[in-house]
């Protein structure tokens, strides 16, 4: 399997095998398992007492800021990969190195700002 599509065809086959393994495991389970559902058994687990309210309970998500931070940095990081393969190629050298430090400075200042704003603190 050569060429661009050939190598990804192998990946696709592997994905199919993975799904088949999962389906096969569930099939074997279906053939072997007993099935005696009772209302109590199908109740949501909550330390042995009857569940209070519903499972999708309201809770404070303290971490949404991290998600923003992550999105910002991950978008930067994606562009890092194509750059990483060519930055030392003849003719680039010092220019790309300076550019890299500009990039690193942006990220570092971003983290420093988030830290000083106490975004990274627990409360």
């Amino acid at each position: 399997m050569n060429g661009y599509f050939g190598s990804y065809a192998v990946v696709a086959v592997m994905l199919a095998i993975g799904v088949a393994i999962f389906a096969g495991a569930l099939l074997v389970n279906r053939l072997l398992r007993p099935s005696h559902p009772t209302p109590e058994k199908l109740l949501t687990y909550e330390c042995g007492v009857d569940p209070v309210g519903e499972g999708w309970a309201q809770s404070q998500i303290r971490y949404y800021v991290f998600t923003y931070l992550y999105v910002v940095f991950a978008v930067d990081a994606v562009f890092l990969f194509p750059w990483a393969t060519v930055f030392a190629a003849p003719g680039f050298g010092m220019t790309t190195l300076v550019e890299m430090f500009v990039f690193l400075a942006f990220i570092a200042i971003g983290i420093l700002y988030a830290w000083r704003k106490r975004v990274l603190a627990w409360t």
Partner: protein
Amino acid sequence: MAEVLDVAIRLAVIVIAFLTLPLIVGQTEHKAMAHMQSRLGPMYAGGFHGWAQLIADGVKFAQKEDVIPVAADRRVFSIAPAVALVPYLVVMVVIPVGPGLFGTDLDAGLFFVLAVMGVGVLGSIMAGWSSANKYSVLGGMRAAAQLTSYELPLVLAASSVAMAAGTLSLPGIVEAWRWWWLPWQAIGAVVFFIAGLAELRRPPFDMPIAESEIIMGPMTEYTGIRFALFMLAEYVGIVVLSALTTVLFLGGWHGPLLPGPIWTLIKVFVLAFVVIWVRVTFPRLRADQLQKLAWIGLVPLALLQLALTGVVRVLAG
């Protein structure tokens, strides 16, 4: 025809490795952990030092009743284990074991690996949300927060290797590897390994499944074969993380005397042992300590490694 057969054999070997290596790591964990804690661990199943314990567990799981709570979102609940497990199998296609010994060589191999492993972590978020259980929701949220925070140092450390090698192809990276990369990329290696541990939610980064406070986190409502598949995903994850660290930072098949693939396996198992060792040694990190370690510890270190890699690469020509 010969070509198809070649690919078929490669894929068959990968599937066998996918099904056996996690069991070996799991059994090693049983025994190593037990001895580190002055216990014996499993001793009966199979006769010799309980070697068949995990096979017995698997047989038991396969016969257990499939319980899906009425309150759960059935469809998402049932496919979550597949989302957690299958990406690791797909990642194994591109990991080289020896020169020419890999499922397939992708130009964007490293990028592909990071992208696909990112899908795997969705499994526990799906499981946490679809279970309609308060503990699961909490666990799922913790998992989401942890995974977003540790993905960044993982990606930055990996891109440092791409810069050093000048390619994203995993076999290409191993071929470009020289022994002096060990000190050169040492910071990146440590950052990558720690961030990888956090991605696997292994102790000491097991806040999302902290069993003493939120039962089993996202997996609270899972039983039987689906739970077993989640467990399998965790141990395949250990194998994949160790293999990736080996390939990217420890030179893969490079080594004296022994043949290449043996060296790869030795390095993978040593790293897998470190994963087990760390679990026994360190207490669980609190949620805020976890975040602090990622953002104030690992990310700046990874950026430092990037700067170091860039400077050395450009100045050394």
